[in-house]
């Protein structure tokens, strides 16, 4: 869904109180905290990107891809927002070695369309294909294969970065600038292009095992013992179930299906990529559709619908990785007040904190139907990169839920006390004071930015809110 924004580089004297064009009012995927950009610029070439960054005023610039960060990471109130979706060229593919050189605005969806027929797949994909490569680097995204493959930037061989001084730098792993940019939320500069190492696949189908687990303890036990056997694994968890059922879950684990696992008919076109989509969710849904009762009913249905134990089911890539992409604009079901995503990671030594958090959420009856739990492998060196070894729990909650702000602060406290951290690409509300302890390299990040970008040209609503 690349936004079709007109380039508005021509300077127009706007009367101060005149309403801006609606498309400059931006929010994240959670549709909370809208802010108005003064200029929305959509460069299509490196030269246009350089001049857009040079032209940005006192309130700076921030890159924005497909707007899938949940909070305010890709907003810049009163300043310039650089819509990267115009940088949409796949420059080169090495089908032998499995690398692709593409511009920052290329989406993972586009990469899959281009690469799957050649027998290659993106190394890491989150729960949506509609993120750009630039955003994947800025948020250092992870997927269901983190325990095997780490986060996205582990597979980036080099990238071109347009920094505040107007220079285009080639940045390679192992340098400070790379580590600051990997997960740096777009604050070190504008990623122009990247070289990404790909994963070879024989088919576009997934071979999936499903297990229904009656409670949290059995889920953690199964994941600890057998997670390494599968490339991909994630558990959907019913946070509304209480008592002995608290934390009951549906664990799905999969691997890319080898060619010989396919039935004869499917073998004729093993690398087909034809994801299906429903019509988009309507624009004006009321807030409050998702409440304890409706979500509770959905969760019971979802849990019971899952097979107790199933092995080797063949699923389309899109069904396994990106079920929600089948409903465009699904974020609208939360109504006008939007929703918040809360994602934390806790080290293995802090299982007890995870249990406490799940218990708190379950007791509070947070209407969350997209709660997932996953086991992370070792983290990557990005200074503000989120994943670290341990458990990650993600849930989304309607922002209008009474008392939610205070409740999430309590959960944050549990996370901070257990040396865990929150994911910046999802955050829209955390307490800024907690950040330095959660991200020990924050001071280095700030120092590097101060040196590289002394005027603070690259900034964002997120950066302002959390003093990044």
């Amino acid at each position, binding site marked *: 869904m690349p936004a079709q924004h007109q380039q508005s580089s021509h300077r127009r004297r706007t009367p*101060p*109180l*005149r*309403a*801006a*064009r*609606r498309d*400059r*009012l931006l929010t994240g995927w*959670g549709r*909370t*905290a*809208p*802010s*108005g*950009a*003064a200029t929305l610029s959509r460069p299509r070439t490196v030269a246009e990107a350089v001049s857009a960054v040079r032209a940005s005023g006192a*309130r700076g610039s921030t890159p924005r891809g497909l707007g899938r960060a949940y*909070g*305010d990471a890709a907003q*810049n*109130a*009163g*300043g310039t927002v650089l819509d990267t979706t115009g940088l949409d060229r796949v420059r080169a593919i090495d089908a032998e070695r499995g690398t692709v050189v593409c511009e920052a605005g290329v989406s993972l969806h586009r990469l899959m369309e281009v690469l799957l027929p050649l027998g290659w797949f993106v190394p890491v994909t989150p729960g949506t294909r509609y993120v750009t490569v630039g955003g994947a680097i800025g948020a250092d995204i992870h997927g269901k294969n983190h325990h095997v493959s780490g986060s996205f930037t582990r597979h980036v061989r080099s990238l071109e970065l347009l920094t505040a001084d107007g220079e285009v730098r080639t940045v390679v792993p192992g340098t400070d600038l790379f580590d600051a940019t990997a997960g740096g939320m777009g604050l070190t500069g504008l990623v122009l292009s990247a070289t990404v190492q790909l994963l070879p696949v024989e088919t576009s189908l997934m071979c999936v095992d499903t297990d229904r687990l009656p409670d949290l303890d059995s889920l953690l036990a199964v994941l600890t013992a057998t997670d390494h056997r599968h490339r991909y694994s994630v558990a959907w968890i019913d946070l509304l179930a209480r008592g002995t059922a608290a934390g009951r879950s549906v664990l799905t684990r999969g691997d890319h299906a080898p060619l010989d696992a396919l039935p004869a008919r499917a073998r004729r076109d093993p690398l087909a990529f034809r994801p299906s989509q429903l019509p988009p969710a309507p624009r004006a849904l009321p*807030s409050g559709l998702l409440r304890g009762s409706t979500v509770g009913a959905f969760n019971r249905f979802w849990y019971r619908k899952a097979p107790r134990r199933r092995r080797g089911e063949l699923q389309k890539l899109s069904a396994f990785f990106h079920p929600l992409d089948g409903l465009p604009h699904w974020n609208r079901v939360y109504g*006008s*007040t*939007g929703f*918040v995503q809360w994602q934390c990671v806790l080290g293995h030594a802090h299982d007890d904190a995870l249990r406490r958090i799940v218990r708190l959420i379950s007791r509070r009856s947070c209407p969350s139907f997209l709660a997932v739990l996953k086991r992370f492998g070792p983290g990557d060196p990005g200074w503000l990169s989120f994943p670290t070894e341990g458990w990650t729990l993600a849930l989304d909650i309607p*922002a*209008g839920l009474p008392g*939610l*702000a205070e409740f999430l602060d309590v959960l944050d406290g549990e996370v901070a006390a257990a040396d865990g951290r929150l994911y910046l690409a999802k955050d*829209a*509300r955390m*307490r800024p004071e907690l950040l330095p302890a959660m991200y020990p390299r924050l001071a280095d990040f700030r120092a590097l930015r101060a040196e590289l970008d002394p005027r603070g040209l690259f900034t964002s*609503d*997120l950066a*302002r*809110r959390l003093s990044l």
Partner: protein
Amino acid sequence: MKDAFGTPQSLLVLGGTSEIALATVRRFLARRTRTVWLAGRPTPALDAAAEQLREEAAARGAEVTIRTTAFDALAPETHEERLGKVFAEGDIDMVLLAFGVLGDQREDENDPMAAVRVAQTNYTGAVSSGLVCARALRTQGHGSLVVLSSVAGERARRSNFLYGSSKAGLDAFAQGLGDALHGTGVHVMVVRPGFVRTRMTAGRAPAPFATTPEAVAGAIAHGLLRRAGTVWVPAGLSAVMCVLRHLPRPVFRRLPG
């Protein structure tokens, strides 16, 4: 920056000694607010209000900045310069336009200049400071302008039409301003409390649906979350005033109060 719930990190209060404003400040200081500007006439009461907020924050161990700045609603020619200085020091996530005087209806009816002062404070002063703040917020690209109106502005009553007419003007101004700023990232919210038990109303018999500064503060927080255009406190007043607004005048005139 505001967070997902519309809670501000920095707050400018116009009318820094208003009890409703201070209750709102306290509520937000307990959440994410770390910078507060109290703008008002430079009186000991203004400094005392700031000092008390500082002490309360220190007792909680919170690091906050509470500053005061001289501001007089009756001197609109100074607003641009005075408020400009505040915005020059950093983003303001929320402006609370809280100043206002009740006047004395009986006496002011016989003292036109006193009546004009009520109108100039509540309406003219709000127009100039509201426009100054709106432009600064517009430049920021974000922020909320919360305007304390009153149910008294909904329909003029014999007993307080001087005050009521000034609030009616303020209310209409704020609604129009909100429409002018729609889609810019700046949010204007009109708050219409009923009878609020404060110093301003001390000694008066409380009207039905009487409320407290804390309840108004709560309604403001909830309104910011919903990005509401209008907030009634208590919420039930919305329906009550809808009926009263449509009563035939001879009937309305005979209502007590």
